[in-house]
């Protein structure tokens, strides 16, 4: 039986005449998936579509086999921390989370226990009984996150979840996402901070102007882009000689020697041939200290695919 997935099938959403997303087809397996794109690209639209806050004009969506038009069942397994900064005026942090849990069918005692646990995880226990309206922006971000995770959902949808978190909380939160994903759950988050996407994500979805530009593991996405050469950084002693040998290969398009002459940046059209060539050179007795792909990160992908950068 295949792992439950989040599936978008030819989904389009328009806001009047303005395009939200267009003919989006996605298959998101369990794990940590990042939605990456510039402002206005459609990230929040996708998240709102997933959780039923808006409905598609065309196409269909299933979330681990459930429809977003069935909130009774879907929201029982889903937690969504939105970008909307408002909170009920009457709510303290504690009551904000407890109230939601009561609606999940928990008893008052269970709801309070779970709420407290979520607040502890996000380091909000000191402020738990203050009104959410009086929180700082970062605290409001954390309490939304706490509310999303309090009922331990199988599907976590998070809109820019790491914004405003201090490094310790950020690390703990990332660890939580990883442990969640390891249990076979979905963690779908959006971010502008490409480095953290690189670090935490299993897969990435690049979106621009309401359309999916690329999706999958970062490495696999990168491998799809054949027309752009791969980059590798080689550290070695005899850089000039090795560079001359590599230059004879047809698949090499560019070599830049480091200033210290102890390494070089190589661009190749064919990774397979490149690795065979390296093997040959190493076999001839030339010492190669390390070979590192220089563009298997989102920055590079972004630049290639979308043309923007952070």
């Amino acid at each position, binding site marked *: 039986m295949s792992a439950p997935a989040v599936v978008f099938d030819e989904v389009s959403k328009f*806001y009047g005449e303005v395009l*939200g997303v267009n003919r989006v087809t996605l298959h998101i397996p369990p794990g940590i998936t990042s939605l990456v794109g510039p*402002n*206005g690209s*459609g*990230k*929040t*639209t996708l998240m*709102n579509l997933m*959780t*039923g*806050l*808006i*409905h598609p004009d065309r196409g269909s969506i299933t979330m681990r086999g459930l429809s977003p*038009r069935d*909130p*009774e*069942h*879907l*929201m*029982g397994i*889903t937690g*969504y921390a*939105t*970008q*909307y*900064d*408002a*909170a*009920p*005026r*009457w709510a303290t942090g504690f009551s904000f989370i407890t*109230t*939601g849990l*009561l*609606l*999940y*069918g928990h008893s008052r005692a269970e709801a309070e226990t779970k709420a407290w646990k979520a607040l502890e995880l996000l380091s909000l226990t000191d402020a738990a009984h203050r009104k959410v309206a009086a929180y700082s922006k970062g605290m409001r971000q954390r309490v939304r996150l706490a509310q999303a995770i309090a009922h331990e959902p199988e599907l976590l949808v998070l809109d820019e979840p790491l914004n405003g978190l201090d490094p310790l909380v950020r690390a703990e939160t990332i660890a939580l996402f990883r442990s969640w994903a390891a249990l076979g759950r979905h963690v779908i988050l959006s971010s502008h901070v490409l480095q953290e996407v690189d670090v935490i994500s299993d897969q990435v979805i690049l979106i621009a102007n309401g359309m999916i530009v690329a999706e999958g593991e970062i490495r696999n996405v990168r491998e799809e882009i054949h027309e752009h050469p791969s980059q590798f950084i080689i550290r070695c002693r005899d850089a000039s000689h090795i560079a001359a040998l590599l230059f004879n290969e047809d698949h090499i398009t560019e070599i830049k020697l480091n200033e210290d002459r102890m390494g070089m940046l190589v661009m190749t059209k064919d990774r397979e041939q490149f690795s065979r060539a390296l093997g040959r050179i190493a076999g001839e007795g030339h010492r190669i200290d390390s070979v590192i792909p220089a563009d298997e990160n989102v920055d590079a992908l972004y630049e290639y695919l979308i043309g923007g950068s952070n």
Partner: protein
Amino acid sequence: MKKRFWTRQAWTIAKIELRRAFFSKRAFWVYGLALFPALIFFGHGIEVKLRRDRLAARGLTSQALLDSTTKGESAADVRRRLGAPARESQYESRRRVRAKGEATGITTHIIEPAEARFVRLNITRPSYSGEPTARIYEFEVYGTDSASNLALNRMATGSSPCSSDQGPEKAFNGSIAGGRSDSWCTHEYDRFLQVDLGAAHKLRRFVVKHASAGGEREEADTREFNIQVSNDGKMFATLASSAGARFMDERTTNLFLTYFDGRREAQLQFADGKLVSRRITPVLNFEEDRQVFAGVFQFFYLRLAIFFGCLGIFMNLFRGEMLDKTLHFWLLVPARREVLLAGKYCAGLIAAAVIFAGGALLCFGLMIWPHDPIEVQAYWQSAGLAHAFWYTMAAVLGCVGYGSVFLAAGLFLRNPIIPAAVLLGWEGINGFLPEILQKLSVLYYLQSLCPVPAPTDKGAPALIQMLLAPAAPASRFWAIVGLLIVTGLVLCLASFAIRRMQITYGSDT
């Protein structure tokens, strides 16, 4: 099992929302609407109690003594029998009247015998009222033998008449009974009437019959005039004149005595020491107050207070959350959208029912409060409890009906003014609609639940009566059933809307 779970969820939502429903800053004016009539009745009660205390301060008069006063009785006798009044006031009035003995509308002028052929009546001030119209019904001229009117049917001339049938000849036709067309009338500045006797006669007496002699009001009588004679119709001599009737000032001393028997206030008016009028009214009229309450309840409380109060409470439940950008929290809970709708409706209904049923009961209580306890007890034992119950029911069912409409409106529309204006207009024209459409109105059902019919002015135009008192179904049972059916239909529409609802308060996309 599922239904129990849904019910529990809806109740949880309702409990959370009760706070917003009761204390939303956007809807605090709802309390003002609910309590405003109570304030009016409270003020009325205070005013009555103070008035009763003031009247009773000088002691009470027995009911029998109050009823025993008769017209013509002197003030001194009344004081002696009834004692010191609760209140007393006096003033003098003045009236201008004609001197006694003057025949109304007819003046007679006797002169030294003088020979003349032409007689002329010149009017310098046409009327007592100030109206610039002169009117003479008959002008008679008698000779020394006083036997016959020498001017009768003689050739007459005068100022231009008011109309063709009011010419100078009418003053010499020997008649005054034919109304205005049997008189001479002129608006001209130079007002005169002249008769040619045909030949010179020795003249002794003139009789002038003015407006009131012909049946008109005394104010139209000629105020100032003179009579001239001539032999040639050219040279005239004045032989008589009149400045009109004499007026005198009639002064009257008016005394008002007020007596109080504990329930009724008697106002006795004396003119020159004699009782001329007696007015006995209860300080408080329970029946009248119940009628007033019925009118206030139906015309203000149902049509305006509950209507706009439910608008404020129910439209805020979804629309307010949309404006606060907090609605998405509700759409992200694991509950059917219909359960969310039910929970919010319950919250709004509980709040509205408490506020408006409470307000109605408070107002009802304040209406009863200043009345005589015995009278109140009798009322309570007969119809009072039932009246209180049905007023409360009408208020609650008004919240049920209007609440569902405005909850649904809040889901379909952003601007509350539009549904409010449309519904207000619809309720207003209900009486003119076909019967099937009349049933699509909340007020149509509420009116027949009210225990006391609202008073309407029978003299008001039929259109106004129809607007104020539209048609009502026959029985209370069918009114309740009908209202619940309409409410159910509206909530079905609302559940359709909420299933299609999307968050559109605009954020990063």
